[in-house]
């Protein structure tokens, strides 16, 4: 696979579709969660309204260069991750820029936004930002471990690092999905997934948000708009990786929408049931429950 200029509009199209889907889906999930709590919830177009408002606002303050760059890093991370992974299997249009790199690129690019965000938020000088970052980094290092182990188990299993090839290997019936051929790896990866979705019980990272709002504390207006965009794109980009690796990928947009929604719902379901962990508790939890499964997965692979 090599680069053609036509891939740029195709890539933009992917971003457009995923963005709209993401806006609607997150709103829908928020609404579901509200209904579970016997509240009415937000209107389904609320995200559009927020986004338009924030993009429309002009800020007159900044805390410095890195403060600027934080949201840029963040969104670059989200968009980049989305583009480095093929969205729809078998489609030239929606294989995006996956010629640039394989699974490892996706795995490591996840950190790009995190790092940039951390840098930006930290320049604001707000202690809550720093506290949120340390909590987030501490937790994510341990949460990512089972994922890395699972990914590696899958790569070993299929003897390739190319996402396209991994998806190809899972075609021909859902029993060919990694979910069924390598359940241990998927179990580990899904536990890791819980840790990285910023939902209970692993959402203490955002706790300062409530007093007032954690790493993005100082961000507002257009800065916040970029971050909100990323908030919508990034989880989906991540889920795409999960979908491709463990759930057979998607051959069409409808399949994509359903799978992404269902995978997202896993974290939502767990989230509404369990109370919040402190960071050291979640580290221990991952150490005790998720990591051994991951290790088993690679040892048996």
């Amino acid at each position, binding site marked *: 696979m090599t680069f053609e200029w036509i891939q740029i509009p195709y890539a933009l199209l992917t971003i457009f579709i995923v963005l709209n889907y993401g806006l609607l889906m997150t709103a829908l999930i928020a609404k579901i969660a509200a209904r579970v709590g016997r509240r009415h919830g937000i209107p389904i177009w609320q995200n559009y309204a927020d986004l338009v408002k924030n993009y429309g606002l*002009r800020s*007159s*303050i*900044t*805390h*410095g260069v*890195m403060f*600027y760059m934080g*949201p*840029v890093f963040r*969104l*670059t991370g989200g*968009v*980049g991750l989305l583009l480095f992974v093929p969205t729809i299997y078998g489609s030239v249009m929606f294989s995006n820029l996956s*010629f*640039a*790199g*394989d*699974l*490892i*690129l996706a795995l490591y*690019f996840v950190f*790009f936004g995190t*790092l940039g965000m*951390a*840098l930006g938020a*930290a*320049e604001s*000088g*707000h*202690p809550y930002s*720093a506290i949120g*970052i*340390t909590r987030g*980094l*501490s*937790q*994510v*290092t*341990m949460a990512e*471990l089972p994922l890395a182990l699972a990914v*590696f188990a899958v790569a*070993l299993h299929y*003897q*390739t*690092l*190319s996402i396209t090839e991994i998806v190809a290997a899972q075609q021909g019936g859902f029993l060919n999905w990694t979910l069924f051929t390598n359940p241990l790896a998927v179990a580990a990866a899904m536990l890791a997934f819980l840790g990285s979705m910023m939902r209970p019980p692993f959402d203490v990272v955002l706790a300062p948000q409530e*007093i*007032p709002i954690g790493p993005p504390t*100082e961000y507002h207006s*257009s*800065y916040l708009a*970029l971050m909100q965009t990323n908030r919508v794109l990034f989880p989906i980009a991540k889920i795409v990786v999960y979908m491709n690796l463990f759930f057979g990928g998607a051959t069409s947009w409808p399949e994509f929408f359903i799978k992404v929604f269902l995978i997202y719902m896993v974290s939502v379901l767990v989230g509404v049931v369990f109370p919040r962990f402190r*960071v*050291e508790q979640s*580290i221990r939890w991952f150490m005790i429950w998720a*990591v051994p499964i*991951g*290790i088993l997965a690679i*040892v048996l692979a």
Partner: protein
Amino acid sequence: MVSAIYPLAAALASAFLLGLLHERQRAPAYAITLGVLGFMTLTAASWVWGFAQTGQAGFEIYTAGVAPPFAISLRLGLAEASLMLLINLTGLLSAIHLQAPLLAHGRRAMAVLLIAVMALGGLVMTRDLFNLFVFIELIVIATGGLVLLSDDPRAVVAGFKYLIISQLVTVFLLIGIIFAYHGTGTLNIDGMAMTTMGLASGGALAFFLMFIAVVIETKPFPANGWALDIYESAHPAFAAIFSAASAAAALFAVDKLLLIGGSDWLPIATGIGILSFVGANLLALPQTNDRRLLGYSSIAQTGLVLVVLGQRDLLGDHTLYVAGGLLLANAVAKAGLFWLSDLIPKREPAAWAALRHHPLALFAFATLLALLVGLPPFPSFYAKWDLVHPLADAGRLWLLGLILFGTLLEAGYLFRWFGYSLKREAPALTGSLVSPRFGVVLVAVAAAWLLALLWGELSVHDNLLLAVPLAFALAFLALDWLPARVKNALAITGLVAYFALTYTDYDPLRMIFAVIFLLGSALTMLAGFDVQGRRPGFYPSVMLMLAGLIMLIRATDSFAFFAAWEVLTIGSYFLILRGKRSEPHALSYLLFSFGGALAMLAGFALAAQGAPSIELVALAQVAESVAPWVFLLLAIGFMTKTAAIGLHIWLPGAHAEAELDVSPMVSGILLKAGLYGLMVLLLAMGTQRLAGVDLVDLLLWIGALTAFLGNLMAIFQEDAKRLLAYSSIGQMGYAIFGLALMNHLGWLMALMFVINHYIYKSMLFLAVGGVARRTGTRQMFLMGGLITLMPLSFIAVMIGIIAMSGVPPLSGFGGRWIFYNAILATDARLPIALIFLSGPIAFLYLFRLIHTIFLGQLKDEHRQVKEAPFWILLPQMIYVAILIVAALVPGLLLRHVDQYLTEFFPFGALNWEGLRITSDFGYWNPVAIMLTIGVIFMLLLSWLLFVNRRAQKVKQFNIVFSAERPYRPETTHFAWNFFAPYRKAMGFLVQPLVTRFWDLITQTLHGIGEMTRRIYNGNAQTYAFHLIGFVVVVFLLGPGGTA
């Protein structure tokens, strides 16, 4: 050749003549003394020259014109002549040193000195047993007199103890001589040797008594309390004679006696020798008196020579070279150090800091210590190498191990002492350096270097002193008076020129190291232009280290390799020691490195199987029975340098406390030496199994554990440089892991780590060093918010941490990508889990580094801080450029290495087609990644800049903060104990168990030394008991036990 009789006669005659002078004619008496000693020295020198030039064999001199057994005969050969030169020269120089006391005590003291020197020479030359006895007694009496030259009133007691002991020795010696004579009918040593003591056990007993009497003259442990007391209390110039000349003569006498005893007695000599060597070195550890310390060391060295004499059956004709090397090294070093000790005002070793402000004196001290420890290029280095090899071949491994252990102990206390001299509070010297008293020390130093040259010339190996890099490094000693900037320019030019001259010599693997060692260090040294003034001692040290490094990659045989290793170790030790608070850390660095080097020495010796050295490539053909051990020993040696877990405790302190531009060198450059060693080892020996364990698997685990624990420890550091140091441990763990994978990509990854680690560690250490320089602290929580004040340093750190964490698009990602591909091809799964965990943990400390220093709240005391100096920034910016280029076109250097590795690992090579890099499993296109990310990033950034073009930067405390307005940066900057949750969850893994383990070992050794030295309770009668006990025990273990 002047007859051997004349010097003896001249000394005797002038000793009598002095008696005729008037008591007050002291100056002429002194002149006569010096004249006679000078004559004796010149005569001996002419003999040495004669023997060395003509290669003439030794000859006998019949004193009464009749052959033995009817008259006494002397022998003069190269060995005798050299010892005579040593003795007479020591006598002469000590006499010069003793000027004041000799003039104060008058002609009688001078006569006694002449007699002492004459008797020592006689002891060396005589071939007659009874004559031997006479000379020993003369030495006893003369020693008894000369001890009293000291100002120390305690010397009287010491002398008396010595006389008591010598009374006992006399009895043993005379009884032994008379019965030996009775058995053989001759007193001539050679004649007696030929008759082989016909009297079964009776003859053996007679010989035993003579032998033990002479052995006691070498002050063997533990029957040597008297000698220690003399060392401690006598005038240092006499102690020099006592250590250098007396010990040499006594050893030579033992050697002569062994001629009679034959090979049965060699093990006994060896046993006594090794007991002395290890015992005395152990007891020297807790010493608090410098001269007593030197005494212990002297006893130990004498013991070592005794071991060599006892190994005559193995060494054969080579004994002279080995024993001579050790003996002369010890003699010159001890004489020099004792003389030097006279300039030190107090007797505790820390008082040697008096030398601190006198570069020449310090150089002398360093030279003499290096000579004593046996560092290259000094004779004892060659000698130890040549001693250890036959031992390993003959399977005398216990002896080998004990020798190495003793050597390590010795290096421990000697370098601890050297550390004091540089780092402790400096008292004033007692006397001027422009005096004969210091002049004689310089003669010893000159002798040390001459001996180095000579032993190199005589050795079967290359002469180290003539190696170009080493010579270049040593030349900086002579240039030390130049301004630092001139020297810096010279050094950089030299490095680059050497690379230009030799770059065709290296294969791609070595090329990487050559580039880092030569060009890389030149780049780092740009920071050296920042230093004003002369910077004394810096350039010799750094060039010594670099010379060692470059000699290391140019070495083809084990000897050159090992010598280079020692050179780089000692150079880096001096370099690390320069840091303000680095004294204990430099010592621990040296001890680990030296211990590792000794393990290597043992490994090489085992591998050589009797040959003087082994080609490095021939390691592949080492016999199967020893190969795993060779592998293990060498690997341990190399891993001390890469600070593998368990052997890592020296690194954080050493790297953190080093000077600003030294830290990048010892971290970015020096650590690679260990990796290079491991590569050479693994390429040659491949996998080895020991007791069913695959050693390479073990290495894999060590690498993974090191990576994990190194990173984990890094996140809990408050000190920025310590954080970087711990991170180096982790990074080296990765590299070891890569090598131990033993596949193509594993090696490629390790090499990529070699390059990357050099770049980003050098950069980060410089950046952090620059910040520490400006803020005056290394504690990160005391900093904060420096981004606007030090933007360039910030950029360097940011690029550094992005590269290091492996996040795309910078070059660290390439390393990770290769790493994943490499582990896909291996079966070792479990250690991989550990390695996986260490990757994200690296994020934690890297973020902490940049956040707590540059982001967050600026402190009031740092509001005026300026950007780091230009010369410190310059290399950083160059590194930034290199990192970006390397990220775009990693193939520039790597594809050649990749190709080269195919020779050793044919499968799994990468495909470097166009801009895309493909492996068996995946692919990667650095340019596409960089472009994609760059375009998205720039688009978003320009949009944001555009919409916020009117945004103003707000003040520091303009933040939303729980309805309060913060006003103190200290309480607002979240920095201390940054990863508290992590400590709660994982803290149990970073308990300092390893540190406690090594502490326990050192404390135990000290404890044993402290307890054991209590046997020397100071009572002369106890010492006599020791002696008799010693004799009895040796008898029971030796001839008595077998009879």
